[in-house]
């Protein structure tokens, strides 16, 4: 098996690292081996950055010996610093096309002798985590950098579930294997070492080989920490069982991730979380369309229209238990051009009056806060809610042209520094890949394609709860549906 020393010594190599096999751990150990060699550690997602950073901290790796960033963030930081050479004028890329420009620009930059010197001066080596998520374009950049500094790629072809619009994902056999030396695959399931060894072994010995050879997965002989719950034949009856599993989970120690089928639309996931008990929080997508859209609308409207946008936004963030009636009353009033008098809360009423009366975004912030006080912890999209509050505060610094720009900056910061996943969270595989949780619940295992299924099955450390119609899961039928 590849040791940290092998990894550190490699000049241009890759390691296949199945989920939970200590990929971040070996990176941290290799970095710690020689703290004087500062390493660039690149990954794809905010979540990945977060978990790498935590791992480094836990291992006591000196913070000066590494720099962790997303590939996107890294490319943007360089390209926007040299706009003339890179040709990148867009400082806040928001769609695939703009990001393409960033990558193209970064590629041009990497041809510049001085930029090469900066990279060589800054880093004495590079690790790229979650390599399976690279687009071809990103892969080409990594190849360019690999000519400058020792480069080691870690990833798992089985977990390549990233969806970047029209971009094609790196193909291990075509792109990686010819140019990079293969180091032995990581073969010990560390995530389940100790008390839950049998789950680790089941994943390594049963699940992975089955998926690698396109075989259905049998749930007949399960380790004791894996619970299978049968779903009824009628999908309309799923929700009751799913909710009761979620309720049960609240009794467990540690944190839990509830994995929502990736094929479904976001709004369905939102609706599902809305119906769950208080502690459950929605994991937002990083581009957070709801935030960006609302920011734009708030900025472009005023008076009653603006108040209505705010009320719709509040409706997105708060579960209906107590607040829905207040909101619908308010909305009715506003539509009729009246402010009305939300009887239970003076602060909310006065801030809404201000929103209608003046043009300051500050009063929106007051409205948001007043409503939060009113609805309390029944906010099930706290990430979205906070991002909006932060965006308004950010806009207030005067550095932005519009609230949209401020919101972009807030999300960009999240993109760069990562975020904390709430203790009880609901999210789709895409948003939680690379992360580990104490408990993982697959709400509908039949709806996942092979790679998404593998990712979902490998998230739980202590327990795994699988909901499906039969005790044999056949993910291959979903392949056409999602691609």
């Amino acid at each position, binding site marked *: 098996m590849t040791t940290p020393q092998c990894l550190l010594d490699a000049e241009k190599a890759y390691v296949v690292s199945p989920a939970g096999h200590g990929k971040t751990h070996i990176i941290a150990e290799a970095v710690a081996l020689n703290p004087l060699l500062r390493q660039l550690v690149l990954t794809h997602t905010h979540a990945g950055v977060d978990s790498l950073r935590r791992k480094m901290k836990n291992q006591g790796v000196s913070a000066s010996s590494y720099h962790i960033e997303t590939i996107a963030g890294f490319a943007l930081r360089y390209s926007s610093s040299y706009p003339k050479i890179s040709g990148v004028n867009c400082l806040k890329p928001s769609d695939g096309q703009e990001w393409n420009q960033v990558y193209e620009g970064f590629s041009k930059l990497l041809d510049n002798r*001085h930029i090469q010197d*900066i990279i060589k001066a800054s880093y004495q080596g590079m690790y790229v985590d979650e390599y399976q998520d690279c687009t071809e374009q990103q892969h080409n950049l990594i190849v360019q950098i690999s000519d400058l500094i020792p480069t080691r790629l870690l990833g798992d072809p089985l977990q390549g579930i990233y969806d970047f619009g029209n971009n094609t994902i790196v193909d291990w056999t075509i792109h990686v294997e010819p140019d990079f030396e293969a180091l032995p695959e990581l073969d010990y399931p560390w995530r389940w070492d100790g008390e839950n060894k049998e789950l680790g072994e089941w994943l390594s010995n049963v699940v992975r080989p089955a998926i690698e050879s396109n075989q259905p997965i049998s749930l007949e002989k399960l380790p004791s920490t894996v619970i299978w719950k049968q779903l009824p034949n009628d999908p309309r009856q799923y929700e009751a069982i799913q909710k009761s599993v979620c309720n049960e989970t609240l009794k467990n120690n540690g944190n839990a991730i509830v994995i929502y089928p990736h094929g479904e639309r976001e709004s369905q996931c939102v609706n599902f979380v809305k119906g769950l008990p208080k502690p459950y929080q929605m994991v937002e997508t990083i581009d957070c369309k709801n935030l960006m859209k609302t920011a734009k609308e708030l900025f472009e409207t005023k008076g009653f229209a603006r108040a209505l946008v705010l009320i719709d936004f509040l409706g997105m963030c708060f579960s209906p238990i107590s607040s829905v009636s207040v909101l619908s009353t308010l909305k009715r009033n506003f539509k009729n051009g009246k402010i009305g008098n939300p009887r239970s809360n003076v602060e909310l009423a006065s801030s809404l009056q201000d929103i209608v009366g003046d043009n300051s975004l500050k009063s929106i912030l007051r409205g948001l806060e007043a409503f939060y006080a009113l609805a309390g912890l029944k906010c099930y999209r706290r990430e979205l809610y906070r991002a909006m509050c932060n965006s308004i505060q950010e806009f207030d610094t005067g550095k932005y042209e519009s609230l949209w720009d401020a919101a972009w900056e807030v999300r960009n910061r999240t993109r760069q520094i990562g975020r904390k996943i709430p203790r009880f969270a609901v999210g789709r595989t895409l948003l939680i890949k690379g992360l580990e949780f104490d408990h993982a619940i697959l709400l509908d295992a039949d709806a996942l394609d092979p790679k998404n299924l593998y990712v979902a099955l490998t998230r739980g450390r202590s327990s795994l709860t699988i909901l499906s119609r039969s005790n044999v899961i056949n993910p291959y039928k979903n392949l056409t549906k999602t691609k």
Partner: protein
Amino acid sequence: MKIRKLIIERFRGVNQFEWFPNADILCLVGSGDSTKSTILDAIEFVLSSRWNISFEDTDFYRADTSQPIEIKATIGELPEQLLKDSKFGLLLQGLSAEGNLHDEPENTDEKILTVRLRVDASLEPSWTVMNERDIEGKPISARDRELFSTARLGTIIDRHLTWGRGSILTRLTGEVKEAPAILANVIREVKKSLKPSEITSVKSAVETSKIQAKKSGVHVSAEGYSARLDLQAQHIGLGCLTLHDGEIPLRNLGFGSRRLLAIALQRESARRGGITLIDEVEHGLEPHRLRHLLSSLTEKHSVTTENLSDSTTMNSQVFMTTHSPVPIVSLSAENIQIIRSTEGRTTITPVPSDLQNIVRKAPEAFLAKKVLVCEGKTELGLCWALDNYWQNQGLDSFTYLGIVPVNGGGSDSPQTVKNLINLGYDVCLLVDSDVTLSPSEAELIQSGVTIVQWAGSCSIEERIFEDLPDEGIKELVKWIGNEKSIASITQSIVTRTSPQLTLLENPDIWTINTNLRQAIGKTAKEKEWFKRLDLGQEMGDILCKYLTQLAQKDTGQKIKQLKRWVFGNDDSSMST
């Protein structure tokens, strides 16, 4: 590390200054108020590793604090540490071989960074690395500025012979590992070794304190009061560690020696790249030591030391000022920078390489305000004679007036004059009229040169013998006859008379007429009677005796013209 561009705005006497230093050794030469030291100060401050520098209102140009002081140094041959993207790698600019500055570096450019020191009315200095993409810039810490290895070797250099913060020795040392712990131990030992009981004279005061303390309710421990040394660790730091020769600290050495050592150490430490600033490089040094120092500074990168690989190049730059001709002679023209300041605008001009002859022969010219360029040795001798003559009349000396007469080197003189005027000097050209000037007379006058040229297309010798009264001619011929041989001189003159005259070898009895005057002039010119500095000066001395009688002649007119340039249009001096 090298400064490629320097901009100073509103700092002390400099309202505006922009400079592209083009050499590794730069010797700033200029008169007392030319803001030389301000430029060294500016470089020192912008690249200083000090945490803070205290500024006053008077550091602002005309003490006007409404706009900030800005000093911008654009640095090339950068230390690698600064290139990190977490430092200033993302703020690089480029400098092309042709000297064009690109805000983003092109492949063939040299990579450069611009450091800006800004001081506004709050008097708080702030250091940033900036460019056009990021006008506000990114702050650069004192620790990072230390990488510029800037050392000022002014009048206070003892600091550099200690291991204090930012000293040259500290820089040479690199990391000091064990020293602080050892020092702390020494302090503890010192404290212990002093027995309080040994200092008996303070005993009663200690006793009184104890009694009074108890009386006023201050608790006194069982051990009681005593007088002990209070050596707090921070007072005895690395700064107290100084270089000694035997028992003697080097600060007891002569100033020149300390300075030589400090410069040599800085040179050693600057092998890794650094900027050295030397005020009045000649200070405290005998000419031969100064010459040795300068040659060691300009020595090329051939030397390698044990700890450095052969490929190490001399990555350093030296800025110095001087008031002595010695550095000017020892350096080549490209190292000498003429600096001037008028109305807050400071300009600096490198000496063109075709002035190298002046650099060698008359280095004083560069220290002057006004330069009197003489066509040859005869004219130069004459000028010296005139200087003496005018001094004897109670006028100011050339030295006092900041005037330096130099030998322009014959037909090169006009070009020399042109170069000097381009450097901003007030120049007068004293030249024969028997050759055409290149650049032309008109061009020279256009550019502000005062030309003193004898009338009638003739040489200085011909002019003098044309104009002198009879006695003057006789005196000159007799004197030159003594120098050479009156027989051969008479012979030479006779062959040049037309129609030919018969002359006895006794000038006293000659009848001076036009024929004879022309023949003597021709002989003097062709036989090079005065073409030696001493002979030229002696001729001048004799000429001066007859100066009052020459007032209506061309010689007198031209000397008057020269006098006007020397003393300015001042009536009191013109009356004589």
